[in-house]
């Protein structure tokens, strides 16, 4: 009920407190993330349906390299934690630490995307691209959609580093950093589903 009340007061009263605006932006962004989750769930559903349709092509067991996957997973997990540390620095108002945390997070995220692109290119160069089988089509669609999200997250993070450096930790900048943190942690959660269902279940 409190959210509804504050929405009404926002409509009637332009002099709205900052925390109310940020709360609404946060909830709105959360609802976007939930719609994104539904997008991913449809891709997961199609992967599970097509996951064993190899068309005499390679299977997951032949393609996936688990130590390499563990490296990707650790990159993303560590980047989630370093982003959390950047958020703690933001709440303390320590601008340089925020920039440092974002830079480390960016590098870890960039490492993840680089490893994934390298994996994709290796598979495609061996003729195991998305056109090979229904399994590989749904694999590239699901994992590629996640990778695209992470890449856009990196662009967003680069923009936020610029905003923190130029504008400082103003309320709108803090609100954006908060939403980017939700986006980043959300992508790490989707990755748990991907490495469990796509890779580990495919290799076992």
């Amino acid at each position: 009920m409190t959210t509804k009340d504050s929405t009404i007061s926002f409509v009637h009263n332009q002099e709205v407190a900052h925390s109310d605006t940020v709360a609404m932006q946060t909830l709105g962004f959360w609802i976007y993330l939930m719609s994104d989750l539904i997008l991913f769930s449809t891709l997961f559903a199609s992967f599970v349906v097509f996951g064993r349709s190899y068309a005499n092509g390679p299977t997951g067991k032949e393609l996936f390299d688990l130590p390499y996957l563990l490296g990707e997973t650790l990159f993303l997990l560590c980047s989630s934690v370093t982003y959390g540390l950047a958020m703690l620095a933001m709440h303390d108002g320590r601008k340089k630490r925020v920039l440092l945390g974002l830079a480390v997070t960016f590098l870890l995220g960039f490492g993840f995307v680089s490893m994934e692109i390298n994996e994709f290119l290796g598979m495609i160069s061996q003729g195991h691209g998305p056109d090979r089988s229904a399994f590989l089509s749904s694999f590239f669609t699901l994992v590629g959609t996640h990778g695209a999200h992470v890449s856009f997250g990196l662009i967003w993070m680069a923009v936020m580093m610029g905003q923190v450096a130029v504008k400082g930790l103003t309320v709108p900048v803090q609100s954006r950093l908060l939403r980017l943190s939700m986006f980043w942690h959300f992508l790490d959660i989707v990755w748990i589903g991907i490495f469990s269902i796509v890779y580990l279940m495919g290799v076992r």
Partner: protein
Amino acid sequence: MSPAPIDSTGVSRGSLKSYLTGFVLALILTAIPFALVMSGAWSSSVTVIGIFIAGIGQILVHLYYFLHLDTSSAARWNVLAMVFTVLIMFLFVGGTLWIMSNLNYRMM
């Protein structure tokens, strides 16, 4: 440059301790399914169950320690939206698998 009041946003600020606790738990819950599959020492059904339990556990760890979702009133609307989304996901994924396996069976 005083820190602005952006608490009470449904996603609370967390602490160093909560991030590090979450990190350690997530590491353990990542190591378990990888070890299960890479060692190959366990039967297929045990491995599948282990992957699922560790995966769901790690998702809960991330939600609680990184996204700070809990039962507090500040997070209530976020949790409510997520519960509804999980219901929709269950309908999508469960319905898809049900229909497709049924079609597959009839095509045999």
